């Protein structure tokens, strides 16, 4: 019998599960060695027993647990604890599980404000009651998985890369150590940096200056061209073995999807420092907390104080 694997998803879009599928051919080799015993996106395995006979949520015992998504409601929280109990090795898959991801931008508002806005305040829908029957209650904010249960490994990314998932799973199967990259996106970016901005801040989708057909190593750093790029405060790894970061390859600025460089890092302070150091005006950044914590809101973003 192979290595038993549990997979569970919480507050997430499902993109990280698609990444598992996106592994392609190497997936066949891995599948031969593992037994997936619980995976809601893939199979019909019910939490309260197949006929609903149990009173508590239960997942099978497993060697490896994969969890994608942050903790948004009480069901997520209970299930995260259950997964931790049943899995020997727990992996946080994707930025939502690692640092809250995009759903954690909701941490800029209180849960009550969110419910009011969605069910009553929105101009495009009829005001209605806030649902509270038969559904799990929302937590007070979005939590990263590691804020709720201890996590053995974090694989960031929105979505994470197939290469990283393969690397982690193969290393686990072979009993070898695996650590995701810890450098910044800038460390892997081939563009030319001169530590001085060439102009003022541009809008994010403004086209950068480059010569089509020439390699990226001849293009000036996007940030120095005035295009806001989250590279300095973002973990590398998105480029995989190719090295060059994914978005840079497409002449687009880094969005910060691999999350902050460490659990204690504050991407907003890092980015404001980076911007002002090269001579760009940090005042021009709209909504800096959200902009620079786009994938790292859990534990970092909080509602603005009332004045």
């Amino acid at each position, binding site marked *: 019998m192979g290595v038993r694997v549990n997979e569970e998803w919480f507050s997430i879009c499902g993109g990280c599960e698609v990444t598992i599928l996106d592994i392609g051919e190497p997936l066949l080799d891995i599948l031969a060695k593992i037994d997936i015993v619980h995976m809601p996106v893939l199979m019909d395995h019910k939490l309260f027993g197949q006929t609903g006979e149990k009173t508590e949520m239960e997942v099978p015992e497993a060697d490896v647990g994969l969890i994608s998504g942050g903790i948004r409601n009480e069901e997520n929280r209970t299930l995260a604890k259950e997964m931790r109990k049943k899995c020997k090795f727990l992996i946080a898959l994707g930025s939502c599980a690692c640092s809250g991801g995009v759903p954690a931008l909701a941490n800029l508002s209180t849960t009550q404000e969110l419910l009011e806005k969605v069910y009553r305040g929105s101009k495009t829908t009829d005001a209605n009651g806030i649902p509270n029957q038969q559904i799990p209650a929302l937590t007070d904010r979005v939590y990263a998985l590691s804020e709720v249960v201890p996590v053995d490994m974090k694989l960031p990314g929105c979505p994470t890369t197939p290469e990283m998932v393969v690397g982690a799973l193969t290393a686990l199967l072979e009993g070898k150590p695996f650590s995701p990259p810890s450098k910044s996106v800038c460390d892997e970016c081939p563009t030319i940096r001169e530590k001085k901005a060439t102009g003022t801040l541009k809008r994010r989708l403004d086209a950068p200056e480059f010569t089509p057909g020439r390699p990226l190593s001849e293009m000036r750093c996007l940030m120095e061209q005035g295009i806001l790029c989250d590279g300095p405060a973002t973990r590398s790894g998105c480029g995989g073995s190719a090295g060059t970061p994914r978005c840079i390859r497409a002449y687009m600025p880094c969005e910060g999807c691999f999350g902050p460089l460490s659990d204690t890092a504050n991407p*907003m*302070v*890092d980015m404001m*420092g980076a*911007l002002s*150091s090269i001579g760009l005006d940090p005042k021009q950044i709209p909504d800096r907390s959200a902009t620079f914590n786009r994938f790292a809101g859990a534990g970092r973003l909080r509602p603005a104080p009332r004045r």
Partner: protein
Amino acid sequence: MNDTFEPLIIALCCNWCSFAGADLAGVSRIQYPPSIRIIRVMCSGMVHPNLVIEAFTQGADGVLMCGCHPGDCHYQEGNLKAEKRAEAIRMMLPDFGLEEERFRLEWVSAAEGARFAQVVREFTEQVQKLGASPYRNS
């Protein structure tokens, strides 16, 4: 002893001007409040906003950043960089629930011992008025 609040202020002084200025205040025996803890840095331009925010989140009531007067920087334009970063720091303080007045950037030359003492006196008073940092006991 009186009960007035004794703030804890971290002063980041550049090696070439402000630290020498603080030294001069000392050897000239100029009195100033004992509220500051001076950290010598090579240049005010090396003070990353992270260091200042870290000082605040660790419980400092105020942070004073001192560098050479513009044009006098030992490294040509380190203090100009510091000025831009200081602007970013001031903007970010409200995001952390702190008042902008808890942070101050001052130019102090090596000959301005008296000015250094004056700056510390003023800043200490200013921070005293604001009270203890909300991060102090957390």
